[in-house]
């Protein structure tokens, strides 16, 4: 397929961190005019490899060949000078500055006096060519996530990068934005750019990649061209031989008569972000209520209202039959409400504290001894072990700071912690976002198992497949209102999708 020389060739890259061999003699080539997907589970070493390429990490051993010469990439600055650019999962735009200013900041050889007009024209020219249309004068805070990503790519293009590294670029995007991104990448390929694209989603790889390198446990499990690759074959490479089982969603009939665990009656909120309007919702024991919606239409606000993080501006919240409208977060949690967040390291886990200390935070009152002068660490440990065993997970090292765990293990810690209280009501906010296939399957299994044991769940997700396979009932949020409600078997993905984007039901 390639009769040209690779643009970049990594040879024998080995990189270790205390306790982890993150990359073990990895070879990796990038050719001009190709989209090269880097596929693997969480912790397989993908991020480390591209961080070596981008100069954030220095390899312990191994060489990097750029064109026909060996290079040392000691910093992102070196990488950028060579024409290697990277878009991180966390975008780096400065919210108060406009697109033009954000791009200008990134350009090499920035002149002392900026001509915003010239930069804006360059942005428009390049964005027109590759389908990256954004308003150059818009302040970055006003951009949607998808637009922010476009600006990040534009920054690299205008800085004359030839190798673009995208770290899980689809993670933050909704389906139609993903299609748009793939069109952009295809356009870049036509113009000879090399794109390295990290993901753990198989369909994406098969849709858009020319070549696929699969990593497993820090080594390259195989490199395939698109024509050779099949879903089953890739999974085999990712996981060894075991094919992770997709969740079976066996359903029990809902006990219609049971008293609802949660009732929201015409709840309004006000404040930053989206305001909820007239939300009326019930969750019964043994029921999963799925919340569909394009991100930013009130999902987080809905979760926060239930957890008591946001006060209601109107309406009533009833938990276990009691008026909980003014309850504190602590009181709500102690009544048996658990929270499974999208990004536990930011929302639930305290990085400098140990696994055990994080576990104790589930209910510090319960573990306090002598009115709080000491903490019963033996009980904390016992609960950690018990909950871990019940969820059929591997025990995490209790004394290790949570911030040093891998992403998947942080997610596991958050599940172990939140489900240890045997919650009656679970608020799950994008629980499988960012998880690899196996992790996502395990999380879905857990949520279904909790439901089958009688817990009620609010499942907020953007993955319509997940919502349809897991939910007993679906509601659709649009601009802070519930615009539709249906049982999954009575509706279609198409219908829900239309409601999500502001269409009218039944029309």
């Amino acid at each position: 397929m390639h009769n040209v020389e690779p643009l970049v060739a990594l040879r024998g890259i080995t990189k270790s961190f205390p306790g982890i061999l993150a990359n073990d003699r990895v070879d990796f080539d990038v050719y001009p005019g190709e989209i090269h997907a880097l596929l693997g589970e969480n912790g397989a070493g993908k991020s480390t490899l591209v961080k070596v390429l981008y100069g954030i990490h220095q390899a312990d051993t191994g060489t990097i060949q750029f064109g026909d010469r060996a290079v040392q990439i000691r910093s992102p600055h070196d990488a950028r000078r060579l024409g290697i650019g990277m878009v991180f999962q966390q975008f780096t735009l400065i919210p108060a500055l406009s697109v033009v200013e954000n791009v200008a900041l990134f350009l090499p050889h920035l002149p002392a006096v900026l001509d915003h007009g010239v930069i804006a024209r360059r942005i428009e020219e390049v964005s027109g060519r590759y389908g990256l249309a954004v308003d150059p004068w818009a302040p970055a805070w006003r951009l949607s996530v998808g637009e922010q990503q476009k600006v990040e790519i534009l920054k690299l293009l205008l800085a004359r990068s030839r190798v673009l590294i995208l770290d899980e670029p689809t993670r933050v995007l909704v389906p139609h934005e993903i299609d748009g991104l793939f069109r952009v990448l295809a356009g870049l390929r036509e113009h000879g750019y090399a794109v390295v694209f990290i993901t753990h989603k198989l369909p994406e790889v098969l849709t858009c990649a020319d070549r696929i390198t699969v990593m497993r446990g820090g080594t390259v499990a195989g490199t395939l061209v698109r024509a050779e690759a099949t879903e089953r074959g890739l999974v085999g490479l990712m996981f060894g031989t075991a094919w992770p089982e997709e969740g079976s969603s066996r359903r029990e009939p809902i006990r219609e008569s049971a008293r609802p665990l949660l009732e929201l009656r015409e709840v309004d909120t006000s404040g930053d972000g989206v305001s909820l309007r007239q939300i009326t919702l019930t969750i019964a024991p043994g029921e999963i209520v799925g919340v569909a919606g394009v991100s930013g239409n009130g999902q987080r606000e809905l979760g926060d209202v239930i957890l008591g993080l946001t006060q209601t501006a109107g309406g009533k919240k009833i938990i276990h039959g009691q008026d909980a409208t003014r309850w504190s977060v602590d009181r709500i949690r102690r009544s048996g409400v658990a929270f499974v967040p999208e990004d536990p390291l930011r929302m639930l886990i305290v990085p400098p504290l140990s696994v055990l200390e994080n576990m104790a935070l589930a209910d510090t009152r319960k573990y306090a001894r002598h009115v709080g002068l000491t903490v019963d660490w033996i009980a904390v440990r016992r609960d950690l072990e018990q909950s871990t065993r019940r969820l059929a997970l591997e025990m995490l090292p209790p004394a290790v700071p949570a911030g040093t765990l891998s992403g998947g293990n942080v997610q596991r810690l958050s599940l172990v912690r939140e489900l240890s209280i045997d919650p009656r009501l679970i608020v799950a906010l994008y629980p499988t976002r960012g998880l690899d296939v196996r992790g996502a399957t395990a999380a879905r299994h857990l949520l279904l198992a909790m439901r089958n044991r009688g817990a009620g769940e609010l499942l907020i997700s953007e993955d319509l497949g997940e919502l349809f396979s897991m939910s007993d009932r679906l509601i659709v949020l649009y601009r802070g209102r519930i615009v539709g409600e249906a049982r999954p078997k009575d509706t279609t993905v198409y219908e829900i999708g239309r409601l999500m984007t502001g269409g009218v039901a039944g029309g």
Partner: protein
Amino acid sequence: MASAHARIPRHSSARAILRATGLFGLAFVIFAAVLLAAGKDPIRAYRDILSSTLVDRYGFSEVLVKMIPLMLTALAVAIPSRIWLINIGGEGQLYMGALFATWAATYFAALPAWELLPLVAALGFLGGGLWAAISGVMRAYGWVSETISTLLLNYVAILIVSFFVFGPWKDPESANYPQTAEFVAAARLPTFFGTRVHLGLLIALVAFIVYHVVLTRTRWGLEIRAMGGNMEAARRSGIAIGRYVLVLMFIGGGLAGLAGVGEVSAIQGRLRPSLSPGYGYTGFLISWIAGGNPYGIVASALLMAVITAGGDVLQMAHRLPGSVVNILMALMLFVVLARRRVP
């Protein structure tokens, strides 16, 4: 997977100490240049400072005397800083502590010492604590940043103290001096070894031990560390953040108030408007230098006490204005700020 590998390299504490020593050495070298420029012999000046503070018995006792309010006001900054509160109000809290203590010492003067002293100390703690709690309340409700309000309340506190010593509490026997009457003997904190070193030293050390134990061993310490490590996660775990803002501000202010108690009850014996030569601000500097670390606070308080005492030496033996040491303190602040690399 990104987070799995994002290990922050941690400097060993030995290296951190070495680095701090080097930076402070740099501050001393620059100050030596200032002394040279003023026509003084820096080596002799440093030798004199050392021999009259750390080596001399009386001199060392005076260093300890200065360390007491410095340690307490530094703790007043360090404790709220565990949950990212910035308390610049140590000075005002010290004054309010002194004011409340003076009130107790004056109006309950008939009580025996074993009742009066705890009362004086408790009211001093209360005075400083309530003063800081004002800022705590305003912060907990999201009205005013505690950084601003604590700073502004310093001026209010000093003016309130002035009002009382110039007005209702002025001692008629002190001619025109703005000061209250001398405390009765029962309201004077005991001093030790015939020096001015007083019970406050013990109180400060106990405060350090309690601070350390609470933070590392108790349920509340765990919650405080959780808030310090990830405020969002703490909120979602149901920790009552507003309550901690209030309580930690109160405790911090109370400790600064105790510094005020020591000054009026042990050192001055009466309330004067010139109660503190900026102990509250120096305490802030100390806490900042030490990054809130208890051992670091004690070490930095010692250093600052030596420098402050050194000011007197330079004034008396070298005929330099005593405030010349402010240059040295400013240099210390510079090197501390330089320690953190801009990301």
